[in-house]
C-alpha cells in the first residue's frame, strides 16, 4: 500500500501578514467568518447536549449516531468542533479515555464512495481504492476482540451528498456504530431536518436512530450578541448599527455568516467615507452595506440598457398585456417592437438587430429566451416582473 511520506504544503509568504493598525481593521479581522471564537455564544444548550452524548458514549466505550440539522450559518460545525476541543482537553486531564477524531465532508469528496478512502486514510494513513478501503473498514469495525482499541469519533459534514442510489455508503456509516466492538461515534450534519425521512431507506434511517438535534436560526438578539462578542474590546461599532444589521439578517435568514459579512462590509464603507481612523461604524454605513448585499441589480440593469433594449422590453410587456400570456414568440414581439419604434419616432431596426438585442437581454438574464436556432419561433419570457420593467423605464422626472 502507498503511504504518505511527504506532507503537502504551500509556499511560505515572504512578508508577514499586516497587523491591524486601526480599530476598524482590528474589527474587520475579528469579524471575519474564518475567525471562529473560542466559545460560541448562544449555542450553550446545543453544546451541552452534544457534549453529553459524545462523552457518555466515550466513557461507556460503545458507539452511536447523532444527526444534527439546521439551516446554513447556524453554527452546527463550529459547535461540534468546539465539543471535540473540550473533550480533548478533558482527555488530557484524564477525565475521559482518549479517542480518535476524524472528519469527512461530503462536499469535498468527488464521489460518495471516496468517503471510505478518506476515513481509512485518516485512521491508518493507508491509501486504497474505494472498494478496498470499504472492505478494510468493514473488517476493522467488525473485529471481534479489539483489546485496547480507541473510540473513534467520525464527523460527517454535508451528509446529503453521500447519497447514492443504493445508499450503501450511508448505510455503512450508520451500521458500523451498531456493531458490538466497533466503538464508533458518528456525528452527521446536514441542512434539512427531515433528511432521514425524505431520502433514506428505512433500514438506513432506523440505524441512524432518533438522537437528533436541530439548530434553530439565530434571532436578532442572538446575532447581536455574536457580533458584539467578537468586537467586545474594540471600539469600532455603534450599538444601534449592530442591532440594525442583526435585525435585518434575522428577518431574512438568521445566518450568522451573513450578519458578519454585512458588518465587515460596513467597516469598509466607513473607512472609505472618512479619513479618520477612529471613525465609528454607524447605522448609515450598515444601511449601505445591506443595500449592496440584498438589493436586486435588475432594475439598475434595465435603466442602464440601451434605447433599443429598453424598447424591446417594452415590446415584450405590451405583447404580454395584449395576449394575456406570460410567454410570446419572437415574431410577435418583433411586430410590437417596430410599432413602438414608430410611435417613439425611432427608426425601426432590422430583424437581425432585434434578434441581437434579444440575445443580449437573454444573456444578461433579463429575459429568458431559447437558442437562436428557431429564430422567429423562439419563445421569450420575462425574468423580471412587469411592474419592475415599468418602474425602471419610467422617466426619471416622474418618479
Amino acid at each position: 500500500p502507498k503511504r504518505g511520506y511527504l506532507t503537502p504544503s504551500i509556499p511560505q509568504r515572504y512578508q508577514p501578514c499586516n497587523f491591524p493598525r486601526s480599530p476598524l481593521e482590528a474589527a474587520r479581522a475579528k469579524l471575519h467568518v474564518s475567525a471562529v471564537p473560542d466559545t460560541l455564544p448562544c449555542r450553550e444548550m446545543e453544546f451541552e447536549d452534544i457534549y453529553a452524548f459524545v462523552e457518555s458514549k466515550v466513557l461507556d466505550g460503545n458507539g452511536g449516531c447523532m444527526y444534527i440539522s439546521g439551516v446554513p450559518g447556524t453554527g452546527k460545525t463550529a459547535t461540534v468542533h468546539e465539543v471535540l476541543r473540550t473533550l480533548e482537553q478533558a482527555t488530557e486531564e484524564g477525565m475521559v479515555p482518549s479517542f480518535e477524531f476524524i472528519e469527512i465532508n461530503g462536499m469535498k469528496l468527488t464521489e460518495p464512495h471516496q468517503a471510505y478512502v478518506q476515513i481509512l486514510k485518516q485512521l491508518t494513513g493507508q491509501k486504497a481504492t474505494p472498494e478496498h478501503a470499504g472492505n478494510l473498514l468493514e473488517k476493522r469495525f467488525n473485529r471481534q476482540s479489539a483489546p485496547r482499541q480507541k473510540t473513534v469519533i467520525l464527523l460527517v459534514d454535508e451528509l446529503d451528498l453521500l447519497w447514492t442510489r443504493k445508499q450503501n455508503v450511508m448505510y455503512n456509516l450508520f451500521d458500523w456504530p451498531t456493531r458490538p466492538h466497533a466503538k464508533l461515534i458518528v456525528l452527521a450534519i446536514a441542512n434539512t431536518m427531515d433528511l432521514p425521512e425524505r431520502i433514506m431507506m428505512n433500514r438506513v434511517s432506523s440505524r441512524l436512530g432518533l438522537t437528533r438535534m436541530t439548530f434553530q436560526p439565530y434571532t436578532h438578539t442572538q446575532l447581536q450578541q455574536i457580533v458584539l462578542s467578537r468586537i467586545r474590546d474594540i471600539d469600532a461599532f455603534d450599538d444601534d448599527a449592530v442591532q440594525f444589521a442583526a435585525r435585518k439578517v434575522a428577518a431574512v435568514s438568521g445566518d450568522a455568516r451573513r450578519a458578519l459579512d454585512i458588518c465587515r462590509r460596513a467597516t469598509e464603507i466607513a473607512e472609505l467615507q472618512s479619513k479618520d481612523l477612529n471613525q465609528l461604524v454607524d447605522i448609515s454605513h450598515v444601511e449601505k452595506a445591506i443595500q449592496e448585499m440584498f438589493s436586486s441589480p435588475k432594475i439598475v440593469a434595465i435603466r442602464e440598457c440601451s434605447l433599443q433594449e429598453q424598447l424591446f422590453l417594452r415590446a415584450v410587456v405590451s405583447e404580454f398585456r395584449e395576449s394575456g400570456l406570460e410567454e410570446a414568440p419572437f415574431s410577435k414581439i418583433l411586430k410590437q417592437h417596430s410599432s413602438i419604434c414608430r410611435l417613439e419616432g425611432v427608426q425601426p431596426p432590422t430583424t437581425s438587430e432585434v434578434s441581437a438585442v434579444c440575445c443580449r437581454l437573454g444573456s444578461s438574464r433579463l429575459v429568458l429566451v431559447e437558442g437562436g436556432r428557431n429564430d422567429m419561433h423562439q419563445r421569450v419570457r420575462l425574468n423580471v416582473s412587469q411592474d419592475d420593467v415599468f418602474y425602471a423605464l419610467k422617466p426619471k422626472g416622474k418618479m
Partner: protein
Amino acid sequence: MASGKIGKDSSCYGYSKERIDEIHNTLPCRESQISTLLALFGKPSHAAYSSIFIYGHTASGKSAVITTILQTLQLPHAIVNCVECYTQRLLYEHILNQVGDVIPSPDNNYSCYARCDNMNDFVRLLKNLIEEKELGSRTLFIVLDKAERLRDMDANILPALLRLQELSNCNICVILISEIVLEKFRTGTGFHEPFVLHFPDYSKDEMLEIISHDCPSDYSPSFYISYVNLLMSIFYMVCRDLNELRHLAQLNFPKYIEPILKGEATVENAPKLWRNIQPHLQKALQTIYLREVSSAQWEKYQLENVEGAGSLPNLLSLRSSVELPYYSKYLLIAAYLASYNPTRTDKRFFSKHHGKINKHKLKKTEKISFQLLGPKPFPLERLMAIFYSIVEGKVAPTANIFSQISSLVSLHLVSHVSSDDQLDSAKYKCTVSLDFIRSIARTVNFDVVRYLYDFV
C-alpha cells in the same frame, strides 16, 4: 455588420502587387469582398480581427476566396471542415496538425501533433505550437468551413473559438464560413461578436463572366458566352447555383457543337444551333438536373447519339417498382388504405352491409384532401381488418404474415410511429406514393382507387 468598400489601391499591405492581382484574377466578381478581407487582415504582423463570420448562399465563393487569399499570400493557416471533424477531438487535432505541419501517414504511424481532448488543452497546445513554429507576431488564420455544425458540438466550443485570440493571447484570427446567418448561432449565454461579412449572390452577368473562363480552347469566348446565355435562358429560372450551371454547360456543350462538327452549320449560325440544342436542354432539365440519369450516362448517350433522349434508361424512376411477395402486396395496399382513409369510412368501404351513403352531404363538408395531408397513423388491428377484407381467399394469421409486416417496416415502405412499444398497441404509417401503390395493386388486379376516400 458592414461590408466596407475599400479601394484597390489600399489593398497592398506589404504584399507584392502581382500577388494581389493574381488573387483578383483567379476570383472574378469578388473585388469588394477580397479587399475587405485584405483590409481586415492587414499586414502579417498586424493584430487581426479576432473572428470573422462569412456567410452567403451555396457557391458564392466563400471558401474559394478565403483559401485563395491564404494560399497565395502564404499566410500561416489551418482550414478545417466541420462536417469531417464531427467531434471536438478531431477538430482540435486537425487544426494542430495543420499548424504544426504534421501529416498523419504510414511513416509516422498515423500519429498527430498531440493528443487533445478539450478546449483547455487545445489553447495550451496551440500557444506552445505558435512559439515553437516561431510565427512571432504573424497572424495565424484558423478557417472553419461549414461552421453551422459547431452548434451541435459542446456549448463551450463556439464561444471559445470566437475569442481564441483573447484566450491564447496570440495573434489568431478565426474565420467561420457558413450558409446560414449569425442569428441562428446565438445561444443563451451570448458570445464575442465576430465581424460579419456577407457574400452576395452572383448576378447573371457575373455568372456569365465566371463561366466564360472555362471556355474550350478551340472556340472563341464570345461563342461560348452565347452558348451559356442560351443555357441560362432555360436553367436560370430554376437554378442559380454556379457549380451546377458550370457542370451543365460542360455536359451539354458537345451536343451544341455537333452541327458544326457535322458541317451542317457554322459558328456564326446561332439560330440553327439554338433550334438544335433547345429541345435537348429542355429534356436535360427534367432528367439530368434532377439526377434521374447520371452525368456519365448522359455523356455516354450523347456519344452514342441515340435517337431521342427519351430512350434513356430511366433508372431512378424504374426503382419505384419493387418485387414483393403476394401477401406483402396486400398488406401494403391495406396499409395505404388505412393511412389515407378516415377510420369512420372503413365500415362503408369494407363491410358488406353498410348503411346508406349520403353522398351529397359528404361532398359538401369534406374539402381537404387526405392525399395532401399525408399519411395518418393506424393501429395494427385496423391494418389486419382491412387486409382480411381485401385479400382473396382465407389467410391464417400466421407468424409469416406478421413477419412480412415487420419486413415492410425494415424496407421503409411502412414506418413505425410510436417506437416506445414494439408489441402492444403498435402504430404504423404507410410511406409510399399513390403511383407506387397503384402499380402494386395492378399486379394483383385490385382497384385501389375505388377504395380511396378522396376519389369516391
